[in-house]
């Protein structure tokens, strides 16, 4: 399976704390994307980091990418209860004409108020 893996599978923190999620993938990539999913429904794109980038910021989100280790991390700073969701990393399929995304297994984040 090409599916990536994320850890931890579940994370529970208090509001105001930082949350870090890690993602590992298996193939060479053009970019890596992070998505959030609330209540098992639609996904929302959070951030995209290209293979030639090592770190990227967007608001309270910080993403790092280490292509030598085929891994990425998502840091959410000063977490809020509204950040409670599942977080998935995704990498586009490499080569060919299909731009399908290969998703990781996800991290379920619970932020306690």
């Amino acid at each position: 399976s090409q599916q990536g893996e994320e850890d931890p599978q579940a994370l529970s923190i208090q509001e105001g704390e930082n949350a870090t999620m890690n993602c590992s993938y298996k193939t060479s990539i053009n970019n890596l994307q992070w998505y959030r999913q609330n209540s098992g429904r639609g996904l929302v794109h959070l951030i995209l980091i290209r293979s030639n980038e090592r770190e990227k910021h967007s608001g309270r989100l910080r993403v790092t990418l280490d292509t030598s280790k085929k891994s990425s991390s998502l840091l959410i700073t000063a977490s809020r209860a509204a950040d409670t969701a599942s977080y998935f990393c995704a990498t586009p399929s490499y080569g060919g004409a299909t731009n399908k995304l290969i998703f990781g297994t996800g991290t379920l984040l619970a932020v306690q108020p």
Partner: protein
Amino acid sequence: GAGVSQSPSNKVTEKGKDVELRCDPISGHTALYWYRQSLGQGLEFLIYFQGNSAPDKSGLPSDRFSAERTGGSVSTLTIQRTQQEDSAVYLCASSHPSGSVPYNEQFFGPGTRLTVL
């Protein structure tokens, strides 16, 4: 609305019945994808449409699954003779590949939750 829409939002059917799920992508997006998410599982790619090119059906789990995209816009995913293992959330996404950035972000619809009794 400017987002991807899907209908119905929920569908309950009996084993053996056929179902049709609909996806309206964002206007102007040339690429459309279907994914499936089973309970507690990650997202699984099903099928990809890009413009007038032949679709990539490599993710369809069996010949009971088919999809079409009419006029380069709306897509329907059809599951024939549904089985209980087809129960899942079916997600549609669209994107607009362009220029030197072919792997743009995908915009997801809210999904259709299918329950096969």
